[in-house]
């Protein structure tokens, strides 16, 4: 399994204090909350490892220590504003040179990307607390380690159908296992998929929840390749960039995956060999599809005799939840579409009212009508931003979790497979024993030695597989608990953020109409 990090974790009480401190800071001012947004490389809520005694044990295990560090994210968050790399990633309103430069880079490929990349700016409130990384490090005892990742600067490389988008992956970390504190590499989408394939293959029967990579999209990519520079392809690129960022963040949040050399290579190495087995119509691709089909058939026929039905009920829970989240995602998707529609219709209406106002003879009414047109215009912008929030904060979260729950189900299936393997080995062992008995009875000493060897071989296999099964069972349980915590935190955080965006919209609405009211009253 994942290697031990070879460090002694500091005693927990320190953790607690520091986290309590950070908690207070987080909850203290609205500004800090506003500053946290999905585009930063870090998450915003620290975990409290000592919340339950047995969970404390989990966290004292190897590798999990690192994970709790990742969640001292307020440091990472505020330091983001200082480091150039991350100001680009965060697209904040702090007007440092680097920020504007960074933003220009993002806007680089298409002019129309302005629409989608500028919009998030206005979601955020302008006031952002800036703290230098050094200050924050001093505040903590310096024992904590962190890892922040940002995916930025999508750039189109090449032309025509062989073109691809290249993304900048920037890492900022204090973990000693990396050569530098900050480093950047460029990666393309198939690199990310390749990483997922590698991790999937390595962990195939371990019972870990491997975060799924973002999905391919032939339509989306073709538009980009063909060079169609409109807002939908810019939106697609932005959607993909954000998805890739979230993917990496989830990967490094997983304690054992972070230790994986492939992950490190992905983050650090300048040039990665091209991952060819990720193409849909390649040999490995087709093989995958066939395997998946056969897996589906297998699933239906296995049932484990369990001592406690934790696994059975948990799996049922997971399946229910997946279904409900799908439904929720569909509803949010519908909302996004209707808001976009509302946006368009409001813009059209606004123009129509402006025309009406220009015809109207009464000058006060004419003025009021053109004011109304302006109000509707502002509403259109508000609707657009809201739709953006709806999508990026809520819809993508839900889509991610539907897929993650699929990955969770995979874990259960893996355990199932391990058990099956164990069963088969036990059956084989039994057969070998019977064969030996028969030989003894038939008195054929030459073959006896072979039979004894066979039995030994299978006995050791059975005990190996028993250990494997125990281990997988333990891992799956652990993973599910970790996942649930993360999920709870993720959902709460995102929903709170979403509600804040709604709040912001309503504030702006109030301002719009308050400005209009006197104009309406002035009609005479």
């Amino acid at each position, binding site marked *: 399994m994942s290697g031990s990090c070879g460090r002694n974790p500091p005693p927990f009480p320190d953790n607690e204090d520091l986290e309590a401190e950070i908690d207070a800071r987080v*909850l203290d001012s609205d500004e800090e909350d506003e500053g946290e947004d999905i585009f930063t490389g870090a998450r915003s*809520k620290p975990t409290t490892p000592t919340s339950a005694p047995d969970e404390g044990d989990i966290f004292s295990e190897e590798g999990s220590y690192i994970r709790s560090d990742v969640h001292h994210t307020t440091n990472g968050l505020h330091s983001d504003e200082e480091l150039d790399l991350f100001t680009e990633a965060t697209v904040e309103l702090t007007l440092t040179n680097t920020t504007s430069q960074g933003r220009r880079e993002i806007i680089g490929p298409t002019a129309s990307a302005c629409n989608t990349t500028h919009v998030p700016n206005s979601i955020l409130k302008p006031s952002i607390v800036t703290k230098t990384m050094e200050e924050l490090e001093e505040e903590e005892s310096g024992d904590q380690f962190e890892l922040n990742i940002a995916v930025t600067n999508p750039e189109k490389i090449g032309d025509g159908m062989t073109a691809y988008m290249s993304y900048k992956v920037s890492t900022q970390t204090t973990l000693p296992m990396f050569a530098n504190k900050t480093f950047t590499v460029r990666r393309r989408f198939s690199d990310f998929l390749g990483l997922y394939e590698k991790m999937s293959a390595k962990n195939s029967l371990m019972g870990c929840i491997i975060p799924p990579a973002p999905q391919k999209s032939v339509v989306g990519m073709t538009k980009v390749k063909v060079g169609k520079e409109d807002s939908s392809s810019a939106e697609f690129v932005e959607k993909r960039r954000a998805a890739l960022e979230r993917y990496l963040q989830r990967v490094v949040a997983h304690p054992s995956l972070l230790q994986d050399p492939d992950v490190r290579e992905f983050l650090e190495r300048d040039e990665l060999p091209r991952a060819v087995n990720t193409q849909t119509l390649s040999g490995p691709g087709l093989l995958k599809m066939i395997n998946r089909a056969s897996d589906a058939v297998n699933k239906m026929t296995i049932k484990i005799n369990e001592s406690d039905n934790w696994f059975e009920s948990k799996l049922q*829970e997971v399946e*229910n*939840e997946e279904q*409900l*989240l799908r*439904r*929720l995602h569909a*509803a*949010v998707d*519908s*909302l996004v579409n*209707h*808001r976009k*529609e*509302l946006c368009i*219709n*409001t813009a*059209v*209406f606004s123009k*129509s*009212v402006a*025309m*009406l106002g220009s*015809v*109207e*003879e*009464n000058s*006060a*009414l004419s003025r*009021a*009508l053109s004011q*109304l047109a302006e109000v509707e215009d502002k509403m259109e912008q508000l609707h657009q931003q809201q739709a953006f929030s709806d999508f990026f904060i809520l819809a993508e979260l839900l889509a991610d979790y539907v897929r993650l729950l699929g990955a969770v189900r995979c874990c259960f299936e893996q355990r199932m497979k391990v058990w099956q393997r164990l069963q088969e080995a036990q059956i084989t062992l039994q057969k070998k024993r019977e064969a030996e008995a028969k030989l003894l009875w038939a008195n054929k000493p030459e073959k006896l030695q072979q039979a004894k060897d066979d039995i030994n071989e299978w006995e050791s296999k059975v005990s190996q597989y028993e250990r494997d099964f125990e281990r997988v069972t333990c891992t799956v349980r652990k993973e599910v608990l970790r996942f649930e915590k993360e*999920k*709870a935190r993720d*959902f*709460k955080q995102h*929903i*709170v953020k979403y*509600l*804040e965006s*709604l*709040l912001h919209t*309503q*504030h702006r*609405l*109030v301002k719009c*109409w*308050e400005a*209009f*009211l006197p104009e*309406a*009253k002035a*009609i*005479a």
Partner: protein
Amino acid sequence: MMQEGLDDGPDFLSEEDRGPRAVNVDLQTDATLQVDISDALSERDKVKFTVHTKSTLPNFKQNEFSVVRQHEEFIWLHDSFVENEEYAGYIIPPAPPRPDFDASREKLQKLGEGEGSMTKEEFTKMKQELEAEYLAIFKKTVAMHEVFLCRVAAHPVLRKDLNFHVFLEYNQDLSVRGKNKKEKLEDFFKNVVKSADGVLVAGVKDVDDFFEHEKTFLLEYHNRVKDSSAKSDRMIRSHKSAADDINRIASTLYTLGTQDSTDLCKFFLKVSELFEKTRKIEARVAADEDLKLADLLKYYLRESQAAKDLLYRRGRALVDYENANKALDKARAKNKDVLQAETTQQVCCQKFEKISESAKQELIDFKTRRVAAFRKNLVELAELELKHAKGNLQLLQSCLGVLKGDT
């Protein structure tokens, strides 16, 4: 199916505004004649309005009385005004549109069919929604019929019309049947002829600057209002769809929240509750925009058409007058049928001058009414939007406070 539930009509009107519901017109309520619709009943295909009159005029037998009328009888009254030559010089208040519950009924039917595929809570919720929608359409149609009557009652000449008094007072069925197919076809042809004629007449340049200006203005205004009305409808429909989506989100969150009793589930339940409430507000926003903005535009679409009709009639009279003049000159030149030509010319002249005189005043009144109505509605729209946005704000703030405090 659902109609039975709504047959207990009387109660629904005892809501917010009980006074003159003349939203789109600013009318002086005059003690000598006050008309309103005090009640309405929805029965299958028909809506029965209870028209209530209060008057100090001597021609009525009582001071206060009510009758029951249906939509067709309103149309009959309107048409009688239009066909009356005496009223050619006035803007005839536009007829109220036919009550249209088809869309709502269709939705209810679809809901009934899809009952099996959703949970009981979802079904009851959607049913309540649709019933509320039905009610809203109902209220609107009542308001529009009332506005028509109030406009007639406020008009110095039309209020004296005999048909109008019969309409108000005669407490038996007026036996006004809806137009049959032949009559509808006749109407259609009449309209075609009229619009062709209208184009011809409009082409004639008017000597009077005032009317010439009005002609151009009304034409353009009418087109712009038509455009705005259609677009406001589309915008509001999108808004309603978005509110419906929030409804679905709230229900699904609720289901998620009831799966377990973990922290996250409690969180979901709270958020679900919040969305329920904000959805209601969003639905109200859409409904208010519909009432204050869309209905306003629709009404002035119809009124500007009525004004255009007036101008057409005047134009027609002008053409007739000019033709009569030419005929008279010809007759004098030939010295044949001079007397006849003279009388015709006199009649035409009188007609034209009568129309012109009242038309001028009518058009000026139209302007005043329009400005007042827009002012009233825009102010109310802004106030309502503010009220709802602030309501939303409060809900969101308190919910966020609770959620952040918990976590």
